């Protein structure tokens, strides 16, 4: 950017009646490129500013007839845009929402109006620039980015003088104590964040499942008897009784149960944790915690839709493909006095994604 020279006559005299002096720094001039490479050069203005400035931009476009036609096109675009904006306001006032189809109509009307309004402005402005403005190609000089050695030296001088004057360098006691003062002050805001959350403790190792808790079909929240779940190939999502509305609990305790035919379940499935060949696995993927619920009853694979970790439901949900490193934990099942399916205990390993303290 150019330097500005102050005009002495604008600055009032100081209290001693002295006129302000010219600033000490020499007047800078916008750099001029080598003549051979310039085409149309933006001229340097005369210092007094009152001499007539030579014309830099042509006044008229190159092809006046074409410009006249283009003018009509541009005007049409702007008028269309104006009408569309009015249409937008009319659509807003006239069209109500509150149902899906009326929201669809309102969105369509408002959106079309807005698109045309902005599109008309854009097209009109583009044609204006291309057809109505004379085409120019001008050249401006670049200065090298580095300051001149003189400027650098002067800056360095000002800076070091100021540093000396401040005493920051010469007085190590105040400098060091200042730094020492800012250190705990900088740490304090981090400390203020401690109460953002509780410490995890051992809470990641347990879910809310306890001995005797009934399995409820999630949704209707009804308990289930083995006889209700008797067809091989069945699968359903279940949640612990009493926690069906607690999302924090469900994020770890949601479970799927699958019914198999006789002889289909193999080790390492814990057979004494099954009831009538009904087996329960955690629905929380051991990769990063998505619910893993795509059960293919022909292949006995449980597929997680997030990253395609695949577990073999007949073999203790061990991993057969994908990024999950550990099998789905199995929930020990039993039945209560009324014959409903219950958990015999909590999961014996932490459910869900791995963590540092898991081991």
């Amino acid at each position, binding site marked *: 950017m150019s330097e500005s020279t102050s005009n002495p006559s604008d600055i009032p005299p100081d209290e001693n009646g002295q006129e302000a002096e010219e600033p000490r720094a020499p007047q800078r001039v916008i750099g001029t490129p080598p003549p051979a490479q310039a085409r149309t050069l933006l001229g340097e203005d005369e210092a007094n500013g009152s001499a007539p400035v030579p014309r830099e931009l042509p006044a008229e476009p190159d092809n006046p007839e074409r410009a006249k036609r283009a003018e009509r096109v541009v005007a049409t675009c702007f008028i269309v845009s104006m009408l569309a904006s009015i249409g937008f306001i009319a659509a807003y006032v006239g069209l109500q929402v509150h149902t899906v189809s009326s929201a669809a109509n309102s969105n369509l009307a408002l959106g079309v109006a807005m698109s045309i309004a902005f599109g008309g*402005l854009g097209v009109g402005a583009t044609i204006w620039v291309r057809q109505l403005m004379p085409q120019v190609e001008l050249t401006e000089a670049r200065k090298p980015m580095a300051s001149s050695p003189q400027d650098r030296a002067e800056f360095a001088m000002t800076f070091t003088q100021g540093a000396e004057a401040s005493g920051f360098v010469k007085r190590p006691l105040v400098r060091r104590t200042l730094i020492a003062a800012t250190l705990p002050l900088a740490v304090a805001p981090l400390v203020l964040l401690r109460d953002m959350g509780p410490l995890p403790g051992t809470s990641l190792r347990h879910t809310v499942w306890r001995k005797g808790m009934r399995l409820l079909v999630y949704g209707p929240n009804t308990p289930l008897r083995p006889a209700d779940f008797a067809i091989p190939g069945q699968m359903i999502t279940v949640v612990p009784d009493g926690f069906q509305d607690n999302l924090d609990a469900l994020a770890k305790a949601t479970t799927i149960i699958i019914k198999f035919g006789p002889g289909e379940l193999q080790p390492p499935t814990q057979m004494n944790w099954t009831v009538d060949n009904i087996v329960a696995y955690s629905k929380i993927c051991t990769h990063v915690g998505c619910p893993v619920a795509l059960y293919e009853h022909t292949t006995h694979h449980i597929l997680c839709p997030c*990253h395609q970790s695949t577990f073999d439901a007949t073999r203790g949900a061990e991993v057969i493909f994908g990024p999950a490193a550990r099998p789905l934990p199995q929930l020990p099942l039993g039945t209560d006095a009324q014959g409903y399916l219950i958990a015999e205990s909590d999961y014996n390993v932490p459910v869900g994604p*791995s963590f540092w303290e898991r081991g």
Partner: protein
Amino acid sequence: MSKTTDAMDGTGRYLDDRFRGARSMRTFLRKIFPDHWSFLLGEIALYSFIILLLTGTFLTFWFQPSMTEVTYHGAYVPLHGIRMSEAYASTLNISFDVRGGLLMRQIHHWAALLFVAAIMVHMLRVFFTGAYRKPREFNWIIGIVLFTLSLLEGLFGYSLPDDLLSGTGLRITQGVMQSIPIVGTYLSYFLFGGPFPGNIIIPRLYVIHVLLLPALFLALITAHLFFMFHQKHTQMPGKGRTETNVVGAPMYPYFMAKTGAFFFFIFAVLALLSTFAQINPIWLFGPYNPSGITAGSQPDFYMGALEGALRIMPAWEWNVLGHTFAFNVFIPALVPLGIIFGGGALWPFIERWITGDKREHHINDRPRNAPTRTGIGMAAITFYGVLWLEGANDVIAAQLQIPLYLLTWIARVAVFLGPVIAYWVTKRVCLGLQHKDAHLLSHGVETGIIRQLPSGEYIEVTRPVSEETRAVLESNRAGAPQLTAPTAGEGADEIPAPGATGALGRLRLTLNRVLTEGIPLEDGHGNGHAERAAVTAGDHGQPAPDQGSDDHSA
């Protein structure tokens, strides 16, 4: 007419009496902007950001950032009676009970996607033209930071409605966070205020999304634009363009008009998309529930590479001494994007170290003239692209009927092989194009006129390339100053250049050779075709005339 001029005169004087702005404003109005369509890509990002601010402000007037549960009885009938968070319910309200609400929501989301997409193509343009070189390294770093922040801003933004799809994304984020060694569980519990999902994450993300990150964006974008303004934009090579000038049209009225027109185009395109392309239909997802999930769970496209990285990773986990290293989670989370962002941020400095080029650069490179850089860029795009596609592998598998696991295996191979092949192919293509340029310069353009020589031979008449084309073809062939190390076989007694000694120095020399590989302009086998105009002596086979003042480089 004259009344208007008088009024403008009066206003001008009024302001100038107070600000002394005439000279600096005049410089501003006359500022030259080079003209190339690819220079407008950054503007797409800039204006999308402004539109995001406008539509986002609209949304904040109705959105409730709260996870308190309510029972829904609003306009969307299929969800009547369902328990959901206030955040979700208020988003349904905006979509169905506020006039223009759905349109504003959709524009906001499409603008977010366009914002990130524009940053990507703009960044690639800057990379492939070498516009990140001195003096623009800081602006490049700011750009990388803006890119990273935009990913976070988008992630937090689309998680605010607390719907099934974005809630699943938060679950994955939490699972990844939890896997970080030593601090993972603490970070997770602090961010979510306890176990997942807790009841405070949405309000916290809201503040970050609406206040903290936009403030950072405003500051960084302002700095980005100011630096570009102060250093002047780069320009494409051409006739009359040198390292010490800018050729184009002035800010007033040309650039202002063009940039204004482009702003309207961007707004129009966003409005069109929001009218005819439904985005993020949260009423179909349902409110977030950690027991439910949808097939085809993907984040927004800009997180696709992370998602793909998580899918592609084999099941590696170490359990040792009571602690778990979940490599299968934190490697994909940190490594691929770490390479891209870290590599990207460091690239200007790496290239400078290899080439030893300390000059200022204001003329863009043609990508073919920097074949190694272009090859590395294409390799990075391939790497990112393979991960991106893998992130959509279940959708691709379902739509194109390709087995799911096969796609993952292909991706596991392609993520390593693809970049190598891309680098090699790109480099060969660039060198081939350089051949073609050299051929054009030395042989001229074919005219289609066949002439028979007295000897009976038929030749095609060529004419020399136009001045403009010549300027473009010859651009930037000066190359970097050599490191002036002795070539093999020459005197081992010669003192090598500083920076070329030792193991690191030899590495530098090798990389230098690879990076500056190129086809010399003089092809050398002119075979006597007539009608070739004499080329100005001294222009061929030698470095192009001095294009900049070296003496100012540090």
